[in-house]
């Protein structure tokens, strides 16, 4: 018997859709797919609230995938921060698939949300991405997969770092999984990583959001920040996310960036730009005073 494409597609969907019988959830529909599973919108019936369910992709999938999903749920549950999606519940479905329930976030992925935004707006959003990552590091967890699709901007301006499926304890991870282009060289080589792997990932993320069209003009100082964050050697990078964020804040504030050695002219131009009004008023005062002195002569 041959099945039509439509029938095959419906069959695939019915297999993929989780069997929520015996749980407190009622399926609404698919939301998206992650690295190790699919995300569905569901209703938490007793509480009457919408939640997101992340479920391992295929029924009766290997124990390894289930363990990985539950490990991700445990990592997220241990990190309570406004920039992280709270986990409500975790377990197994009737079809054997592992799942966890989390807050349903509505919004857009970082690069889509930042299209058309100004450079300061992009940098301010980037700083907000740094916050939960720095918090995770302080809690002993490295994300290891920071990239635009894993950051979401919510409808109310909230910035959320998602997909902690590759997260590991600091200095405890030693596998080469990650996203090429966003993964630190030591991670790609399968060596143990620490917080500086996420500094690399954030550098790549910053580079990516600066390239979102229409790409804003980038100063040498900004390029230097990206360059230091993405240095091949971990020792040449920022020591941690707070140091990276502090340099971006200095750039936003018109201050001297640690990653960039400016020459005298650049320094003068930066100071004049930063203190333009004060410099203008002092210059006006000096001109007025000078004119009166000249007129008196």
């Amino acid at each position: 018997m041959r099945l039509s494409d439509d029938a095959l597609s419906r069959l695939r969907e019915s297999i993929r859709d989780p069997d929520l019988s015996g749980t407190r959830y009622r399926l609404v529909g698919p939301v998206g797919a992650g690295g190790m599973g699919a995300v569905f919108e569901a209703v938490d019936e007793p509480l009457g609230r919408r939640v997101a369910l992340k479920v391992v992709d295929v029924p009766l999938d290997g124990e390894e995938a289930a363990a990985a999903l539950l490990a991700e749920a445990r990592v997220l549950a241990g990190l309570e921060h406004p920039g992280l999606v709270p986990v409500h519940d975790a377990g197994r479905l009737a079809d054997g698939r592992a799942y966890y329930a989390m807050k349903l976030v509505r919004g857009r992925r970082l690069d889509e949300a930042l299209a058309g935004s100004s450079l300061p707006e992009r940098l301010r959003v980037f700083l907000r991405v740094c916050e939960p990552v720095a918090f995770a590091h302080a809690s002993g967890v490295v994300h290891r997969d920071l990239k635009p699709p894993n950051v979401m901007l919510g409808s109310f301006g909230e910035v959320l770092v998602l997909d902690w499926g590759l997260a590991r304890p600091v200095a405890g991870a030693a596998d080469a999984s990650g996203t090429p282009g966003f993964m630190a060289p030591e991670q790609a080589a399968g060596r143990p990583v620490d917080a500086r792997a996420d500094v690399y990932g954030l550098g790549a993320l910053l580079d990516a959001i600066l390239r979102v069209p229409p790409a804003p003009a980038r100063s040498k100082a900004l390029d230097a920040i990206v360059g230091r964050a993405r240095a091949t050697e971990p020792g040449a990078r920022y020591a941690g996310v707070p140091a990276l964020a502090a340099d971006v804040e200095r750039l936003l504030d018109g201050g001297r960036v640690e990653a960039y050695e400016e020459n005298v002219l650049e320094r003068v131009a930066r100071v004049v730009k930063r203190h333009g009004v004060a410099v203008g008023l002092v210059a006006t005062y000096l001109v007025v005073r000078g004119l009166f002195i000249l007129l008196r002569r």
Partner: protein
Amino acid sequence: MNKILVGLLVGAGLGALDGLTAWFTPEVRTQIATIVMGSTFKGLLAGLLIGVFARKVASVPATLVFGTAVGLVLAFAVASLQGAHYFEIMLPGSIVGLLTGYATQRYGRGLRAEAA
């Protein structure tokens, strides 16, 4: 640095600078020390008043207006003592007041930031 301290420092600095410009007027050059001291005191007074105002009123435009007014009034007082050069004294004096007002709001920390 709080706004009052910024006002005092900027006021004193600009006041001293304002006084030093008297050196370019040969007839008063012998009294330069007194002029600089008087001008610095005037700057300190203006800085204190503007700093206190900036601390109470967290509005840049209002502080700029207040600073200019304080600079004008104090410069008018100085010009009145001399009985001459009103425009020559009051115009730079008002710019100094404006600059002090701007500096207190731009570089001084507000009450909320100090409390944090």
